[in-house]
């Protein structure tokens, strides 16, 4: 997969929050074979006070994708993105503008506005969005080169709430990298997303909150690879009738 000119082998992007310990997180990153990890910049760590934790993450040799998690306004998201660029030395930003504190649903109006500002400022924006096609178009017009539709609300583990919309999105944006972000609970959810033709999956809680995060990281990697291969291999379509796999006519004559 290629995003913003960077080629990666792994189609799993892994979040780094809520693990039992940084040591478990590091092992999960290794087991997942991910090359891109998201890092959250909370205001209270913006002055560099989270350095101890980030030093541990840097040792994992992954590409950092900082996010604007928890930002509820355009201004807040833009400021957080600028601080993240300064702090992590990358122009990549996962843009979240949260519209609703209960469902953590993206505020798509604020999202498009913030994307415009950040793209114009040279950021490579990964927008966390809904499956709405028109919003997707506006984000691409703003300068985004990738779209990250939700599977379900953040951290809910509900899987894909609206697979038909994701399928439509794949058909409508055939050449844009689509990364399902949020809502994945189980490996089968990730496989299903990939079988719909998504380019990658971004997840965090499903691994971090599993009983064995390291094993779950490995399971997710395998599920994503299986789903992607299944999509590329062009699966058969389901049929109503049975089709025998041995021919009926011309059977061998058994004397």
């Amino acid at each position, binding site marked *: 997969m290629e995003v913003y000119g960077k080629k990666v082998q792994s189609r799993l992007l892994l979040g780094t929050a809520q693990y039992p310990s940084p*040591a478990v997180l*590091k092992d999960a990153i290794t087991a997942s074979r991910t090359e891109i990890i998201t890092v959250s910049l909370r205001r*209270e760590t913006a002055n560099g006070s989270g350095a101890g934790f980030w030093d541990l993450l840097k040792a994992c040799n992954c590409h950092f994708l900082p996010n604007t998690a928890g930002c509820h306004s355009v201004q807040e998201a833009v400021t957080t993105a600028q601080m993240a660029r300064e702090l992590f030395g990358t122009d990549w930003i996962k843009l979240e503008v949260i519209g609703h504190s209960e469902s953590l649903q993206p505020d798509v109006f604020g999202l498009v506005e913030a994307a415009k500002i950040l793209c114009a400022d040279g950021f490579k924006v990964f927008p966390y969005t809904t499956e709405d096609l028109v919003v997707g178009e506006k984000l691409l017009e703003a300068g985004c080169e990738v779209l990250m539709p939700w599977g379900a609300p953040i951290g809910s583990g509900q899987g894909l709430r609206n697979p038909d919309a994701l399928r439509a999105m794949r058909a409508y944006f055939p050449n844009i990298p689509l990364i399902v972000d949020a809502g994945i609970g189980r490996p089968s959810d990730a496989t299903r997303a990939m079988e719909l033709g998504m380019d990658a999956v971004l997840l965090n809680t499903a691994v971090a909150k599993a009983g064995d995060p390291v094993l779950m990281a490995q399971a997710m990697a395998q599920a994503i690879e299986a789903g992607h291969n299944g999509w590329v291999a062009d699966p058969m379509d389901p049929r109503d009738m049975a089709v025998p796999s041995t021919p009926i006519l011309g059977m061998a004559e058994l004397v």
Partner: protein
Amino acid sequence: MIRIAGAGLAGLACAFELAQRGADVILYEKGDGPGANSVARFAGGMLAPYCERESADEDVVRLGGRAADWWAQVTPVTRRGTLVVAPSRDQAELTRFARRTSHFSKVDGQVIAKLEPALEGRFERGLFFEEEAHLDPRRALADLSNAVQALGVWIHYGTAAPAKVDLNCTATAAQLPDLRSVRGEMAILHCPEVELSRVVRLLHPRMPLYLVPRADGLFMIGGTMVESNSNRPPTLRSLTEMLSAAYTIHPAFAEASVVEIGAGLRPAFPDNLPRLMEHNGTLHLNGLYRHGFLLAPALAQQAAHQLVGETCR
């Protein structure tokens, strides 16, 4: 003579174990009183190995199992268990918590009301960890400091440690490789209208919190874990979450007085487990993370054993 840098929780616990083995001990403490400089002042004081197992390593249960008995030697320990509850819409959190922990019984609304009459009608389901306990951290630090002094230990307050000590217990000030700070925030509420006799943990998918009853109508609420080395006062976000959690546990907390807020930095290694380790020729006890009162006794016993064996008389 054993010289220890730091008279916080770890330093005092080690001094106690060493003095009991007959060693002469001197503690050097930059702060001006027992625990004055110690992050343990902001602790919950929960001796809850089974609840902690939800996110902690098995070692925490193994090392923390006898902590309540150890503390009871020097300070009052309340052995009334831990009650874990969740709002009805977050029952999935309770199921998950039960799957990851042990040594609890499942309780319904009736049993909850019997255990804590103040919570009657508020929660339909919960988990009761009967064997757990809690103490008052500031009282415990003062009591432990008195106990070690009674055993003949010298504590030099307001005094920096000499360059060479036998044991370093200076937490985040120790600057060990891989040691980081994990910030915690807390508030102390005065609410004589609510009577609770044991620790109540409120499970919530975003921010699980605990409420610890103290004497005289006081309650400590805490639970935040932030990967940060900033020790500025608590943020409005954390306070809002903590105070609304108290309100969720009992609406009478709306009328509570907030008598103190505070933040502290817990020292932690990457696996969030404590270590007794040599660094540049000095023995260090560090990385107690959020398990100070729970794990300090076992680690202090290990440190004392390493320094003087079972007895030096």
